[in-house]
């Protein structure tokens, strides 16, 4: 209260009624929200609409077109069977427009044929691609003379060549023709399909259970042959001198003994109270012992034992004999399979076009042989189906989509392997990113001294989130596949000479020992910060040199060198392991930032309470901070996973394929094949939509696959939401 007495202040006049409710602003805000909400809702609605109608059986129309108006006229008959897909308007060329206009003026065509000079046309799916070369056809609406839905029209879904529209004519069994034009034709065809499916299953079983193992063994034997060849050239070229056996044994014993002594004394110290003084330099000895053990392992005289030429020759002969035997067994099985195929070929079916006698052939190149029954996936008598029947077909198609393998060059059939690929990738990604991100965040928030360096790291992490994802793909390919992968496959490209390697090895050992000694000394030293800095430098140097040691070790020549020599690298190319690590890197910032925020939100009073009871920092983190931060961590993890599951660009560089012959998970040991390529829903959409030969045919599946991907991401988010709510309810704490 320091106002000077006596001076009277004039009252400040406030302006009344001057746009104080910010009306315009409120409208702007609401508008922005409405725009955003509309975009999101329309995204979901459109994808759901198009994605879910794909499998609904549409009626088959018989369309008659005015002669001469057929466009393009070369495509065959003026009558055809087709399923309408969509209508659109277009601008006809000038002459056409003029002639049409004169027809309209003469009253030959209705007034509304041309609207603003635009014609309306309709796209029909006509199928039968092997007969006409196309499976879609545009028809101008005004040229259609007649449309009706023939009762006996049949939609035939086949393993190849897309759909066939026609009517059933006859089944051929062992050259005998059975008429199929009766009213029960569809039921009879369906039972034929069931029988054919049994035969196909038997063939697949044989291939899978008998043929595949033989082929695998032959492949492995071929690998072993290459490996033996490599071994021979190795032992001829390089020096395999190693330590004498006694030196090896001594260093092994010394290393083990020192380790044991350290363990024993640590155990004793733990038992006795108060601890005896002085402490043994335990860590120093441990490092020395570790070095001795590494030395002993590397210089193991037996590991470098030269293979005996005679045994090599013997083994090669064994391999040859075994391969011969396997080939014979394999060809026997092939014969068996060929017989089954022959039997299958005796069951054929004639399905013709509606008005002609042209039928669906087995192959485009042999048009006079009708198709095998086993080539049919499903027949849909679309025009006579009841509602229940339509729902049945719809659900059956969904079932096939979700549980079957793709067919017809991946443009039809199911996406099960693709779902498996996506889920496996996402799970691996989770396994990599969540622990790494959480640990990094805990260190950053709880342990690291908050200073310039930590701020810098935090900024760097946040910036990582903004790097375009394709950059991660390039990095993944260049670093994981071509550097680390190649190293795993075939060892260092240019190994160091042994003396140089050992000199550096000693340097690492010495700097580690120095670092350990100094770290122990900093407790009492007055110049603690100087010593700490020296320790940090020593650790860094030792780490860098150790990396060099690993990268150029002359003692390692790859786990899959034989495969690499055969030009099929194992880890040296894209694969699900590298893809998931790349995605983990991509999503790491999300997890780190979310975890840091969740940890920071745990009240200080909780931490102090814990420290006050004598809990160490780690105990506090584990028992108080992490449980409190768990909901936030989960949110971050799910955000990261959802982002990773939808990411496509980096995958294209590190191992995704449109068609991968083998799944990354299967029933064979070791069940998860981290080196294999895989298929992914996102990439599948891209390939279907933009790369497939018949974009019009695969468009419905693009929608449906998109819907599926969207549903998976939504389910993930929902699961996280539920989980988080339950954790929160259990802890009854809102953080």
């Amino acid at each position, binding site marked *: 209260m320091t106002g000077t007495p006596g001076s009277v202040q004039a009252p400040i006049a406030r302006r009344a009624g001057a746009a104080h409710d910010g009306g315009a602003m409120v409208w702007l805000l609401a508008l922005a929200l409405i725009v955003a909400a509309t975009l999101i809702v329309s995204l979901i609605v459109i994808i759901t609409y198009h994605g879910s109608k794909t499998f609904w059986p549409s009626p088959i129309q018989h369309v008659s077109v005015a002669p001469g108006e057929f466009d393009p006229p070369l495509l065959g008959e003026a009558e055809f069977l087709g399923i309408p897909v969509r209508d659109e308007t277009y601008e006809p060329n000038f002459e056409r427009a003029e002639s049409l206009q004169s027809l309209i003026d003469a009253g030959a065509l209705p007034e509304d044929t041309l609207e603003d000079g635009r014609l309306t046309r309709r796209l029909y799916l006509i199928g039968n691609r092997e007969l006409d070369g196309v499976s879609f056809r545009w028809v101008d609406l005004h040229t259609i003379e007649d449309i009706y839905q023939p009762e006996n029209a049949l939609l035939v879904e086949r393993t190849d060549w897309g759909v066939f529209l026609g009517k059933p004519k006859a089944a051929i069994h062992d050259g005998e023709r059975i008429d199929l034009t009766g009213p029960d034709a569809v039921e009879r065809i369906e039972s034929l399909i069931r029988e054919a499916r049994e035969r196909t299953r038997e063939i697949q079983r044989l291939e899978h259970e008998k043929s595949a193992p033989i082929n695998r063994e032959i492949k492995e034997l071929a690998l072993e042959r290459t490996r033996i060849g490599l071994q021979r050239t190795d032992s001829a070229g390089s020096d395999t001198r190693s330590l004498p056996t006694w030196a090896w044994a001594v260093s092994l014993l010394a290393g083990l003994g020192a380790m044991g002594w350290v363990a024993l004394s640590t155990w004793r110290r733990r038992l006795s109270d108060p601890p005896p003084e002085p402490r043994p330099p335990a860590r120093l000895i441990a490092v020395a012992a570790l070095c001795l053990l590494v030395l002993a392992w590397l210089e193991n005289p037996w590991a470098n034992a030269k293979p005996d030429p005679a045994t090599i020759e013997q083994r090669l002969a064994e391999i040859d004999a075994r391969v011969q035997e396997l080939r014979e067994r394999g060809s026997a099985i092939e014969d068996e399979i060929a017989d089954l195929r022959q039997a299958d070929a005796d069951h054929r079916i004639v399905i013709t076009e509606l008005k002609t006698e042209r039928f669906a052939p087995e192959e485009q190149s042999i048009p006079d042989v009708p198709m095998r029954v086993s080539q049919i996936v499903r027949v849909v008598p679309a025009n006579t189906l009841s509602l229940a029947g339509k729902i049945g077909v719809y659900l059956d198609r969904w079932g096939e989509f979700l549980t079957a393998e793709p067919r017809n060059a991946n443009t039809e059939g199911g996406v099960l392997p693709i779902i498996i690929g996506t889920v496996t990738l996402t799970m691996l990604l989770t396994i990599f990113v969540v622990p790494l991100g959480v640990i990094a965040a805990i260190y950053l928030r709880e342990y690291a001294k908050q200073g310039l360096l930590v701020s810098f790291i935090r900024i760097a992490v946040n910036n990582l989130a903004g790097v375009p994802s394709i950059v991660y793909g390039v990095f993944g390919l260049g670093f994981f596949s071509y550097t680390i992968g190649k190293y795993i496959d075939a060892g260092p490209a240019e190994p160091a000479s042994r003396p140089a390697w050992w000199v550096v090895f000693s340097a690492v050992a010495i700097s580690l020992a120095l670092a350990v000694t100094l770290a122990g000394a900093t407790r009492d030293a007055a110049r603690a910060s100087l010593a700490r800095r020296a320790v940090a430098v020593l650790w860094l140097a030792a780490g860098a040199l150790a990396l060099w040691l690993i990268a150029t070790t002359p003692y390692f020549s790859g786990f899959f060198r034989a495969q690499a020599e055969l030009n099929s690298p194992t880890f040296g190319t894209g694969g699900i392991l590298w893809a998931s690590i790349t995605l983990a890197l991509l999503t790491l910032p999300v997890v780190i930032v979310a975890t840091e925020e969740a940890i920071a939100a745990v009240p200080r009073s909780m931490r*102090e309470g814990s420290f*006050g*009871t*004598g809990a160490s920092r780690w105990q506090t983190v584990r028992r108080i901070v992490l449980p409190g931060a768990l909901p936030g961590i989960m949110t971050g993890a799910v955000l990261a996973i959802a982002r990773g599951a939808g990411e496509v660009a980096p995958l294209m560089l590190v191992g995704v394929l449109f068609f991968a012959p083998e799944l990354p998970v299967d029933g064979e040991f070791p069940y998860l094949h981290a080196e294999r390529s895989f298929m992914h829903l996102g990439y599948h959409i891209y390939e279907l939509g933009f790369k497939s030969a018949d974009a019009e045919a695969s468009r419905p599946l693009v929608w449906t696959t998109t819907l599926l991907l969207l549903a998976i991401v939504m389910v993930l988010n929902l699961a996280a939401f539920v989980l988080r709510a339950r954790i929160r309810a259990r802890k*009854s704490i809102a953080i």
Partner: protein
Amino acid sequence: MDQTTIQAELEQTTLPHTRAQDAQASLLDRIRAGEIPKPAIHPDVLEEDPVVQIKKFNLFYTKARALFDVSMPVPAGKVTAIIGPSGCGKSTLLRSVNRLNDLIDGVRIEGDIFLANRSVYEKRVDVIDLRKRIGMVFQKPNPFPMSIFENVVYSLRIDGERRKGVLKDACERALRSAALFDEVKDRLKDSALGLSGGQQQRLCIARAIVADPELLLLDEPCSALDPIATIAVEELIRDIAERYSVMIVTHNMQQASRVSDYTAFMYLGRLLEMGPTEHLFGNPTLRETEQYVTGRFG
């Protein structure tokens, strides 16, 4: 309350000018100018057996100095209250005893504190072990987000105790000592966050005494509680004072006079006076103390 307000209130105490008044004003002025006066410690205090000895203790935050050459004993087996206006460093002093200030970046200390004649700040001291010997209760009840049982036995858990029987006995004993057992015995497995404020604070006291600490630090334990809960906690403090040495920080002078055997008065990071509670509140040596306890400043 910041310094200018204190000054303003001091200026409002318009008593007639006497020599004593001049001396008093000049002592507070001299403190504000940076002087560190010699504290008036009653001889009774020095006769007691000390559990904690604070010797020439100074504490600096990154820039500011919070404690100025504080030296005082804390008698064993008694309740020692620390009073003083806000910001006088009493909580800082309390948290220095179990080195909780170590957790704050940029804190530096000089001098030393001895717990049972062993240095607290020596290099070799294991801070974790030190804190295990001292129980602490905070201003705001801070039960952990776990069950009542787990809250009480937290310090045993972190020591690696797994035997159910031992934990159960310890939990019951601590809860009984904290006069909480009868209220919660049927819901030991329930979340501790469902308890009322007073119950939560008594739970925190149970948590602090479950491992029989050598010293109990109470940092304004009743400041977040309603009057009835305050009475319950005060009675509890009197009860447990029979078994433990207690240091309590409070800015409620009635509370200090009710629960403590000895009281120390701090001002701006300095210890001004310490003595038996009835002496300090009845007939203090320093005029400043009298003015503070009678509510004429602070």
